[in-house]
């Protein structure tokens, strides 16, 4: 018998605390580990944003509390501009590489894949554990980088050369002549991201193998829930795109430490009294390599959320997902097109403008599969029986906010318009509508939805709704005015917009956004208390609190190591809500065709 069946049938011996919760090979524990570390980093990343938002609203003012610790002395409690750069760079780096990607693929990919396809665990549990523990060097390095000489990296999350890559000539140390925090801080940044990359790559090989080979009997590809389709295609995206980022990171690391010249132009560069070593490379090469990964990466950061939201909307609409197959093809379409649009980040970069035309057309066409998704979500809620749970509210917010974020993408994809709005706050607005207002709302929805399965307990619905309403209002308050700020052509990554006459009249917007951001930050405390507090609430043994169809709800809550008591057998697709075949308004995938829930499940394999 193959190993996977063994996992089901053997009674699992009691494991020590260390093996059970720390070095666990159980996909659910690993998922929860990813979830908790991701949430902690969400706090850190959000906290950084709140600090630099204060500077934006009230430039050069003393930063309350923190100012006295960090910038005492000559700075007078004020934030220096290089610190500002560091803060937003680390904000974005942490949010993207330590929050969104680990939460979507690490936490929910891990938790949902085996459960929703009816497998006892991942194909390679040991590799799975390794992929989480590879995050720890990254955590340590990125946090340590705040304390190295010159501070953490401050070159933006895009780390464009030569600002990021410049280094002293061979044998003269690792400082950067270009910026104080581009020395060790940048090297740490590169190392941390390489570790994140290895972790994700190991994860994606595992996910693909699991989805392809470990599905329960009857679970054909087109009976898989959207969550699984999204995780599967995301894993493929990652497997194809991440190696390219890894190469880019390694090349920049070599440039910075061993004086290679990949991104340093011929002749080297002078910086005041310093010069770099001799060059010979191309600066723009980094941007191509980086965006070849990072554009697909933005879809890595949305597709899993789209998948999960699809399942949540169908469940709480008590209605089959509208257009299941078109939804699957749309995900595949977004992923495929995602590989040929990276140039839209480089319209103004000095890339041949003729390439820009091609990239623009491909980019605008990517709205098409996205449109299919949006319309099908609307179709799912049409003639539905919508149950407004916290999970559903967050999922609906995802849809409504993704429309805003996606549509603003069209403006930037239009090359002539991008001449005006490139690198302005319009882009910052776009980023946050797709990443915060979509992906994070998707994550909130997923947390509320799967929490009972993860912990066998419920999160408080009332406080969940309060948190949702406040977040929805304040997040719109922070990020919607950014569009207007961007249309006023206010550049991004600016320490102080008051330096410019053409921007001073927009300052009230900045003040409004900062106040909203602070309130938004406070609102997250509700979520934290609810999340961690509910861990100590009463156990609910109920397996299927939402009356959902997918396989994970047939397992105990929380499922034991090995997940299912018996290997589930799948008879139908995941969206049979309101089916006339059933008296209830749902029909689980495992229910036997005559309508009786299966008494014992599939036969246990004899040894």
């Amino acid at each position: 018998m193959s190993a996977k069946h063994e996992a089901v049938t053997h009674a699992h011996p009691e494991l020590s605390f260390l093996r059970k919760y720390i070095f666990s090979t159980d996909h659910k524990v690993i998922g929860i580990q990813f979830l908790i570390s991701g949430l902690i980093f969400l706090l850190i990343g959000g906290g950084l944003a709140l600090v630099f938002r204060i500077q934006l609203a009230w430039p050069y003012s003393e930063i309350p509390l923190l100012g006295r610790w960090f910038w005492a002395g000559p700075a007078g409690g004020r934030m220096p501009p290089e610190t500002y750069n560091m803060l937003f760079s680390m904000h974005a780096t942490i949010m993207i590489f330590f929050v969104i990607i680990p939460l979507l693929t690490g936490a929910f990919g891990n938790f949902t894949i085996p459960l929703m396809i009816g497998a006892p665990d991942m194909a390679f549990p040991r590799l799975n554990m390794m992929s989480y523990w590879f995050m720890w060097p990254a955590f340590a390095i990125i946090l340590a980088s705040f304390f190295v000489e010159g501070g953490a990296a401050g070159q933006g999350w895009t780390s464009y050369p030569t600002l990021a890559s410049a280094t002293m000539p061979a044998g003269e140390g690792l400082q950067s002549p270009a910026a104080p925090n581009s020395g060790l801080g940048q090297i740490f940044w590169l190392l941390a991201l390489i570790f994140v990359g290895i972790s994700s790559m190991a994860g994606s090989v595992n996910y693909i193998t699991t989805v392809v080979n470990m599905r329960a009997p009857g679970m054909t590809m087109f009976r898989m829930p959207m969550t699984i389709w999204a995780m599967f295609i995301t894993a493929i995206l990652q497997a194809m795109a991440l190696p390219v980022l890894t190469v880019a990171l390694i090349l920049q690391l070599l440039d910075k430490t061993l004086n290679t010249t990949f991104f340093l132009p011929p002749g080297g560069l002078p910086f005041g009294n310093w010069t770099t070593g001799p060059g010979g490379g191309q600066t723009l090469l980094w941007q191509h390599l980086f965006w070849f990964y990072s554009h697909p990466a933005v879809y890595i950061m949305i597709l899993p959320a789209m998948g999960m939201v699809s399942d949540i909307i169908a469940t709480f609409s008590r209605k089959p997902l509208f257009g299941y197959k078109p939804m699957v093809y749309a995900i595949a379409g977004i992923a495929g097109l995602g590989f040929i649009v990276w140039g839209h980040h480089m319209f103004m970069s000095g890339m041949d403008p003729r390439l820009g035309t091609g990239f623009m057309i491909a980019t605008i066409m990517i709205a098409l599969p996205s449109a299919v998704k949006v319309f099908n979500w609307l179709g799912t809620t049409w003639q539905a029986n919508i149950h407004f749970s916290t999970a559903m509210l967050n999922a609906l917010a995802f849809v409504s906010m993704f429309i805003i974020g996606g549509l603003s993408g069209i403006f930037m994809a239009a090359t002539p318009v991008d001449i005006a709005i490139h690198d302005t706050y319009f882009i910052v607005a776009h980023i946050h509508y797709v990443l915060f207002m979509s992906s994070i709302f998707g994550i909130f929805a997923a947390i509320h939805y799967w929490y009972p399965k993860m912990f066998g307990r419920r999160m408080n619905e009332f406080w969940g709704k309060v948190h949702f309403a406040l977040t929805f209002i304040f997040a719109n308050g922070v990020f919607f005015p950014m569009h207007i700020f961007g249309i006023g052509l206010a550049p991004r990554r600016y320490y102080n917009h008051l330096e410019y006459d053409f921007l001073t009249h927009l300052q009230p917007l900045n003040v409004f956004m900062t106040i909203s951001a602070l309130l938004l930050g406070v609102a997250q405390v509700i979520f934290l208390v609810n999340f961690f507090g509910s861990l100590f609430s009463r156990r609910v043994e109920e397996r299927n609190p939402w009356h959902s169809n997918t396989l994970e709800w047939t397992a105990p809550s929380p499922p034991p190591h090995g997940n299912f008591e018996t290997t589930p057998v799948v008879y139908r697709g995941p969206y049979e809500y309101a089916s006339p075949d059933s008296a209830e308004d749902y029909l689980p995938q495992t229910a036997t065709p005559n309508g009786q829930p299966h008494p014992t499940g599939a036969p246990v394999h004899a040894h």
Partner: protein
Amino acid sequence: MKWWSLLFAVVILVEVVFVLLAPLVGWGLPPNYASYGSEIDNLFHLILALTGIVFILTEAILIYNMYRFARSDGRRSQYTHGHHRLEIIWTAVPAVILLFIAFAQVGAWERVKYKSRMPPADQVFEVSARQFEWRVRYPSAERMDDPKLVETFAREAQENKKQVDDVHRVNEIHVWKGGQVRVYLKTRDVLHSFFLPHLRIKQDAVPGKTIPVWFDTAGPEAEANFIYDPSSRTWKETKPLELACAELCGWGHYKMRGKLFIHESKEDFIRWLKHAAAEQNATKD
């Protein structure tokens, strides 16, 4: 529970109203002085209109569904897995709109950025960026008469050559109203981006490259902001126009500010150029 739709409705409504009202309080695109600028602004407004319609439509449906189909006991949802014809319609219609949007852009983009489409220039200068300033090199007034100036100047910029009589200024862009301008854009150290908000032009400066940029001040609303006063023989800035850096270049990125001076005519500009040359010679000795 249907009242949750209200939260969504209010937020979306406030946002729509905000977008509509913002230009009234001056929170809109800054004035445009370039001939192609109105093309860019019109395309922006075209996309705003089209996406605005899509936005209001989709949000309205969502909010309506939330209101109308909120849970009521005893009702069952419609049991349907989709609708083939609908899928085709809502793929085809956006496809047409999107293709229209895409192809509407091509002309303006080619006109502004394609090297082959740049009109003959009246004026040429070199901008060399560095942390954290813009160094501008103008050919002398005498050289301005040379019909081959643009080609020779392009070569000089490429090969890092200078002429002794060049006029150098820091953080000051001088052009004249209605002029066609060619800039050769370089950087000595890191990426910067040459951004003139009122002229709707933006171009990154790339280490190791010399990039030609075209812009003009020939828009219908263009006005001079740097006026020569013959009586006092001085210039007066009537309205501040700015050059900004739009690519992160280090701690001073936010204050890498230059000024844009639009003279009333070429003669005025030449007068200023000679004046600047004289000033430069005076400090040289």
